[in-house]
């Protein structure tokens, strides 16, 4: 059996996203990677992830067709996915170990370093199972983050015990992780991990579904690229679309009544107006200064020694919103420290910082033509609850009641738009072929 698909790839400044659409233009799978040192690899990795994700969806479909009850389906699929991810993690861990030892040998760091690496990697391998238990919380799904935090923690332990110096171990990791996350071989294949995952699971309906889906030939029809690295994609020019168009169409695909789109990404903020077909009618971005984009929050998180995902919930606990005047990211950091020294609460300051970022976006929205119903918020910052609250308040204050759409998959909006463009191009080519034939 074969299934044709089109893919859209959005090369962002912090992550690369891929969305796979089936011929009915339904989302078959989504993939994301934070690998950004090499765009070609980032494309391959995110597409590989999206295709794995697509197979999970196909398995779900098979289970449903086999009349497995929804609850049982969810349980089976979740268990399978966790086992699968564990296998994938182990595979990457092995690749990481090889690279670490390779660099240790190259730098002639000696047997003590080799032993320290074995200790760390051994512990990480032992803990892999726990990491992928039902109910276990992982701060990130990116291998770099998962492996990095544990590796550094274990290296710190060795240093504390006087077994090995900390810096050389971290230096090795920095080199090895880049190569590992840029390797599609390290990620492995669906069939390979699925087979190993199934060893630990009971057979039956799931086994049949996994076998059937593993045998499906997923055939790519077309790929459209977007995002900042799009010029470097190995695609013909006509298969490259600006992210403005892709975000507009992606938002339209998710929420067809959308007229205004706000995307706050890693390195820029876009305010886009679209018509009833998802065609962009106007847009605004900042050329001279990127203050107020997602990196602003990243910088603040670093300054406060917090994880990016912790900012929103902490700001949500604020009793009041401290007014942050600076629109410059770096100066906002200085203002943050000053406020802290004046005794302001962290959550109140954070609330102010979120309001500041959204105020910048409001200015762009005003420039682009305002906020019309319905209003769709996309990009990584749309996952931040405090930013969403600030946006909701400011839009209501300035434009009145508006329906605010935020998809849990908003980070994939650009890639979804690109994949939709890909199918439109396929359709156009087919129509052209029919015309020529007739």
């Amino acid at each position, binding site marked *: 059996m074969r299934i044709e698909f089109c893919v859209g790839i959005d090369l962002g400044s912090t992550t690369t996203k891929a969305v796979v659409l089936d011929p009915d233009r339904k989302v078959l799978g989504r993939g994301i990677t934070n690998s950004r040192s090499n765009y070609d690899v980032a494309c391959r990795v995110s597409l590989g992830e999206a295709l794995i994700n697509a197979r999970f969806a196909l398995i779900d479909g098979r289970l449903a067709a086999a009349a497995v009850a929804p609850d049982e389906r969810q349980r089976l699929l979740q268990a399978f996915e966790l086992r699968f991810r564990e296998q994938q993690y182990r595979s990457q861990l092995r690749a990481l170990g090889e690279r670490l030892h390779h660099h240790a040998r190259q730098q002639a760091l000696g047997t003590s370093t080799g032993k320290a690496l074995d200790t760390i990697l051994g512990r990480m391998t032992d803990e892999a199972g726990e990491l992928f238990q039902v109910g276990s919380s992982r701060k990130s799904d990116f291998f770099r983050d998962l492996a990095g935090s544990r590796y550094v923690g274990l290296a710190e332990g060795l240093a504390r015990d006087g077994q090995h110096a900390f810096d050389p171990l971290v230096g090795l990791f920095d080199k090895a992780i880049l190569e590992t996350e840029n390797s599609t071989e390290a990620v492995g294949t669906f069939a390979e991990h699925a087979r190993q995952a199934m060893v630990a699971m009971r057979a039956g309906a799931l086994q049949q579904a996994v076998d059937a889906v593993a045998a499906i030939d997923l055939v790519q029809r077309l790929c459209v690229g977007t995002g*900042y690295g799009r010029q470097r994609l190995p695609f013909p020019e006509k298969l490259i*679309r*600006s*992210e*403005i*168009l892709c975000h507009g169409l992606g938002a339209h695909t998710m929420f067809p009544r959308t007229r205004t789109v706000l995307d706050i990404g890693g390195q*820029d903020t876009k305010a886009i107006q679209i018509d009833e*077909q*998802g*065609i*962009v*009618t*106007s*847009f*605004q*971005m*900042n*050329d*001279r200064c990127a203050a107020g984009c997602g990196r602003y929050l990243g910088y603040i998180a670093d300054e406060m020694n917090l994880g990016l995902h912790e900012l929103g919930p902490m700001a949500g606990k604020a009793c009041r919103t401290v007014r942050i005047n600076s629109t410059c990211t770096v100066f906002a950091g200085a203002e943050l420290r000053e406020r802290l020294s004046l005794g302001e609460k962290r959550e109140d300051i954070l609330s102010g910082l979120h309001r500041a970022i959204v105020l910048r976006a409001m200015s762009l929205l005003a*420039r682009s*033509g305002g906020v019309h119903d319905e209003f769709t918020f996309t990009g990584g910052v749309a996952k931040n609850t405090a930013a969403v609250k600030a946006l909701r308040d400011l839009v209501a204050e300035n434009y009145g009641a508006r329906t605010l759409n935020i998809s849990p998959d908003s980070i994939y909006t650009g890639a979804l738009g690109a994949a939709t*463009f890909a199918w*439109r*191009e396929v*359709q*156009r080519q087919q129509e052209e072929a029919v015309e020529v034939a007739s």
Partner: protein
Amino acid sequence: MSNPVVAASAAAAAKDKSQERQKAMIADHFHKLAMAPDLGQKCAYTFVPGNLTELLGSFGVLPVLPEINALQSGMRGKSRDYIGLAEKLGHSEDVCTYVKCDIGMLKSGNVGPTGERLPKPDLLLLSYTGCFTFLKWFELLAQEYDCPCVMLHVPYQGDGVITDSMRRYVVDQLRKKVIPALERISGRAYDEDLLKRQLALSAKAEDDLVWVLESGKRRPSPIDAYFGGVYYIGPIFTAFRGTQEAIDYYQELRGEIEDRIRQGKGPIIPDGELQEEKYRVVVEGPPNWTSFRQFWQMFTDEGAVVVASTYTKVGGVYDNGFRHDPSRPLESLADYCMGCYTNLNLPTRVAMLAKYVKEYSADGFLINSVKSCNSFSAGQLMILREVEQRTGRPGGFIESDLVDPRYFSASNIKNRLESYFQMIAQKRAGGS
């Protein structure tokens, strides 16, 4: 205030004969300026918008245009250091970069774009007060040079018209302030007959310039009216209006463009000729000079031609019918000063852009908003919305600066432009 003219730049487009001619004219002018102190030739520093070139010429006074020197420094890659030097001397980051570039050049030996030293001014002729920065600029120059400074106060066209009293006010200043100052420094009496003869020559050159700029209405457009246009306005807005040289230049240019039209050719671009005109746009605002060629290339890569621009009207607007008129010499100069583009009120600018979009069959219009120049930038977002509403064509907005390379973010601007042109393409294709 931002300004045009590129002629002597090494980054020039593929050269036609007219361009070689212009280059030689400008080189000759700078040589005359370099020789001026030795020959006792008098010089006045002055501005491009509403410039009084014929009046200066009638006294045998050579103009030096600091705006042109600044943009030339930008194109020659020298503005970064000049601006840095000016900032070191205490000029704020917010000051117009033309000013800082000029001050930096001055403090670095005042060597002009052709490599020859510029003369000290005998007169600072502040000919346009529509830009407040110009006043401050000449205050700074007045501290540097021991020479008289004369200000011509130019009333703003707040109501969109030039009234008789506004005209009388400017003519009165010309008679009582500007002409006596020129008489004093030149040692010559005001010769109105000579001025009239020069104004007659101006009008001839202006006719051909208007023809050239209006050739952008054709499909394909034989010119790029922004990136190419800044070359075309070189002689008319600098030292040559009112001379036979300007007439010869514009006749030659017109002949070349007539040839292009006959051959059905598109405009000359940095890499040769544009083969396919995919998009026709109108541009508002000055170009970026530090990355001029790269900026132009971003348009040509997409097959975009600028068919009309407002920047080519920065020295004076001709396509509404204005011509210098020998029968009313000083009144005509007054009208010219008050009619330059940035002296027009916002409704007039909106109407002008909307007219360009329609008459030049443009797919849309783009605003390049430069950090340095509030005379252009103030109100541009309102202009954007208004012109969109009136024409139904999409507007695009990009941001850069005149000569400060720190404010030209190539990847972002390219991204905006690509998105903008793809948006037009998508609209044409109905969404595919």
